[in-house]
């Protein structure tokens, strides 16, 4: 009993600085933002002190804004699922690989992360835009010009290409943690490969799938440069809209409300999905 106290003291001393940093750099600005979101916007005076829910009401009662939230959500879900479908086989192959090329493979996955998302979006513009690679090939085959730029397809493709490495790397580390002998045991007991995957690998990889899924889902929900550059003026997602309200229209209260709505939506969905996974995991 006598040793407990100093231990606790040491612990709090160790945690203290980090907690302080988080408090100062995350909680306080968020609290300030929450306060702003209840203010009223006025073009001349910029922000009027108030305590009104009108910014939130404006968002939830207007089909335009809820539509933008829905678009963002759909893009995020679709890209997350595609990341999973495309990432799992690659991650599995990498994790189980004994080849000396394995590290090269991992490096190839990581390499795109060295290039910023803006630069990669610009690259996609060159591929998908008018006069771009796709257009040129289509033209050579006898088509009359095709522009895939400024479509939801372009945005989905852009986000997918950015998020895929995160998914693969997360899954790979989790699959590596699954004992290969468990799969061999399933094999030896006569399970067919699909059965082995469905009943052995998948349940064991579920925490990794959940982590990777949550990671890329959050990234997609908050994507800014990709929808801005590849979606153009006619395609709306939450982050570019939030930026426009904040930095172009100078409507800080509404921008703060949008920020909270985006954050709460993402957090709620993330929490829900981990709850679901946990339940299923326990059921296994």
């Amino acid at each position, binding site marked *: 009993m006598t040793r407990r106290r100093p231990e606790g003291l040491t612990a709090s001393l160790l945690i203290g600085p980090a907690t302080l940093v988080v408090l100062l750099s995350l909680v306080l600005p968020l609290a300030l933002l929450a306060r702003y979101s209840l203010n009223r916007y006025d*073009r001349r005076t910029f922000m009027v002190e108030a305590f009104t829910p009108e910014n939130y009401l404006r968002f939830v009662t207007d089909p335009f804004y809820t539509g933008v939230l829905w678009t963002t959500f759909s893009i995020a879900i679709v890209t997350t699922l595609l990341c999973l479908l495309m990432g799992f086989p690659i991650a599995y192959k990498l994790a189980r690989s004994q080849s000396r090329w394995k590290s090269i493979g991992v490096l190839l996955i990581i390499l795109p992360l060295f290039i910023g998302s803006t630069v990669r979006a610009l690259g996609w513009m060159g591929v998908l835009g008018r006069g771009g690679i796709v257009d040129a090939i289509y033209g050579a085959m006898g088509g009359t010009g095709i522009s895939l730029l400024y479509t939801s397809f372009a945005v989905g493709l852009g986000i997918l290409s950015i998020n895929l490495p995160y998914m693969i790397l997360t899954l790979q580390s989790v699959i590596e943690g699954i004992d290969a002998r468990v799969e061999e045991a399933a094999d030896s007991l006569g399970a067919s490969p699909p059965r082995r995957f469905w009943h052995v690998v998948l349940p064991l990889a579920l925490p990794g799938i959940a982590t990777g899924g949550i990671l890329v889902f959050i990234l997609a929900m908050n994507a800014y440069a990709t929808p801005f550059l590849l979606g153009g003026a006619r395609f709306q997602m939450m982050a570019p809209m939030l930026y426009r309200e904040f*930095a172009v229209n*100078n409507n800080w209260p509404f921008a703060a409300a949008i920020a909270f709505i985006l954050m709460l939506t993402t957090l709620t969905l993330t929490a829900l999905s981990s709850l679901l996974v946990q339940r299923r995991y326990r059921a296994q």
Partner: protein
Amino acid sequence: MSHDTKPSRRTILALAAGAGTAPIFAPAILRAQEATGRVVMSTWGGDYAKLLTQNIEDPLLKPKGIEVVQDAGTEPTRVAKAIAQRRLPRGSVDVIAVQAPAAYDLEESGMLEPLDESKVPNLKYVQSTFATPYAIPHIYSPQVIAYSPERVKTPPKSFTEMEAYGGKVGILDNSYIWVAMAAALKNQGDPGKIVDAKAPLEKLIRAGAKAYTSTEAFAPAIKSGEIDVGLVWHARVLFWTKGGVEMRSSFPTEGCMTYVSSMCVLKNAPNKAAAFAYLNAALDPQAQRGFAATMGYHPTITNAALEGEVAKNLALPEPAPKLIPAPYPQLSAVRDDMNDWWRRTLERR
């Protein structure tokens, strides 16, 4: 401790005034001017900021002992900052460069120092079309119908003729409101009837007109044939032509909406005297010619005649089109609603 020994501004001013009577202390005056001669210029970054240094700050203000510090950023951010500081007796900015509509808004909010010829002597040369009692017009550029000479054989001469290009029209998302004003000018005869321009703009969007989120996207779109025409500033056409894109300007017969970039002095500017000197230098013929030569914007003063290639590039057609600055009060009244409407129209397709 050091602030106790550091002379206050007043002391320095008093010293300077005293020294002024005795020419023997001339270096002291210079030092005093340097100490009090710091002016903070809130401006856009990039080329504009660089050209301010090249054409105004280095050649005209530095020799007078005025040291300029630039506070560069996007216009809304800088305006927000100025508004946030409005209650402070001494703000952090002396001169703010904004588009003319934003200058009007700042004036409406009571944040701008009134200007006259006693403060800014060069105001007497300002072209009357652009003169206001609260801001100097720094540069201007008429809105033109930019077109590809390759694909457009008879250049459109009015907004209506441009409309006929439907899906081949390009609109810059961040200056759509100027397209609305051009439409109102043509259809209503009054650019202030901005709300009435909703219908023609909606028609354009439905016809498949392209909207570009970045100004830079316009030139590649003309080059690749994605669009054939679009309303942009003449200065932009000159800039892109210089960059090798085949593009020409057609001046609308109903008159050209005109972009004006303004400079204003904030009421709580810490150094008003230097701020006025900045404005005066910005209206200097040498500085104005510099901007015309490098950026393709027209001088706003009557005494900066252009010569040679620059004069040829910036020449307005004969008879000169009417230059129409935005109707600031009407624009200010409807802008927020129009922005909201524009977002929805784009989304609806």
